[in-house]
């Protein structure tokens, strides 16, 4: 794993079924909108020894016709939405700030949990990204400092604390410790 610069990490890993699934989805998504991957899959991509049934993706708010085009392309590529088959219903869920899930046809797991930017922290995640370069493509993840702070200050489950610890250890020399503390304070203030 090479931490090339603040925006690039190169990993010469063997791709898992979860990586291949995510790359397939991202290939379609990035043609239609900006995106960032957050939470558990970030830790997994960086080597954390656990699985996950879903991959969390944040996208900016997009209009219906843009979403319809994305939805059509996903369907053409064997993805379906677990929440509804009606594109307008799926769009309404997003508008209501609910996450929607996409999986490959005839499967439930793994799936992509996609939501719109809701809070300022979602916007920060979307604006401050790292490209993880793999053998078959790039996956855009949120800055690790925000991921660590969010898992430690907001989510706080044993699984999340372990994810945060893994990222902290793996990227020890790469991380901006002051930035982690800044995010921690902001999150504490926001969620109190």
């Amino acid at each position, binding site marked *: *794993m090479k931490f090339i610069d603040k925006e690039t990490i190169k*990993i*010469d*890993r*063997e*791709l*898992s*079924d*979860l990586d291949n699934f995510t790359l397939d989805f991202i290939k379609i998504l990035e043609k239609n909108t900006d995106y960032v991957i957050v939470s558990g899959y970030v830790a*997994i991509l*960086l*080597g*954390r*020894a*656990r*699985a996950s*049934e879903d991959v969390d993706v944040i996208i900016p708010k997009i209009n219906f016709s843009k979403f319809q085009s994305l939805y059509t392309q996903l369907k053409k590529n064997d993805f379906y939405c*677990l*929440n*509804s*088959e*009606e594109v307008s*219903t799926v769009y309404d*869920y997003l508008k*209501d700030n*609910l*996450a929607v899930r996409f999986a490959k046809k005839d499967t*439930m*797991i*793994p799936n992509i949990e996609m939501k719109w930017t809701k809070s300022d922290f979602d916007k920060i995640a979307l604006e401050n990204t790292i490209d993880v370069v793999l053998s078959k493509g790039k996956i855009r993840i949120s800055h690790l400092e925000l991921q660590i702070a969010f898992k430690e200050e907001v989510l706080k489950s*044993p699984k999340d*604390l*372990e994810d945060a*610890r*893994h990222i902290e*250890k*793996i990227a020890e020399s790469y991380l901006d410790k002051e930035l982690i503390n800044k995010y921690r304070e902001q999150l504490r203030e926001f969620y109190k």
Partner: protein
Amino acid sequence: MSFTSKNQKERMRFVDKWAEYVKTHSDKDWSRQQNMVINSSLKSASMTREQFFKMKGEKHFQI
């Protein structure tokens, strides 16, 4: 110390050990081992849509 906190401490120790392994071994090496966990877990997962949404605590879906 309770069983839960003892267990969590033990799990954290493993996280540290594994992170050290990842840092000191090639990407191919650690990912091959990690993939055994990921791929087998995905293969063994089997549930209905209703069960999945119930597990996630989500109610916004149509049958």
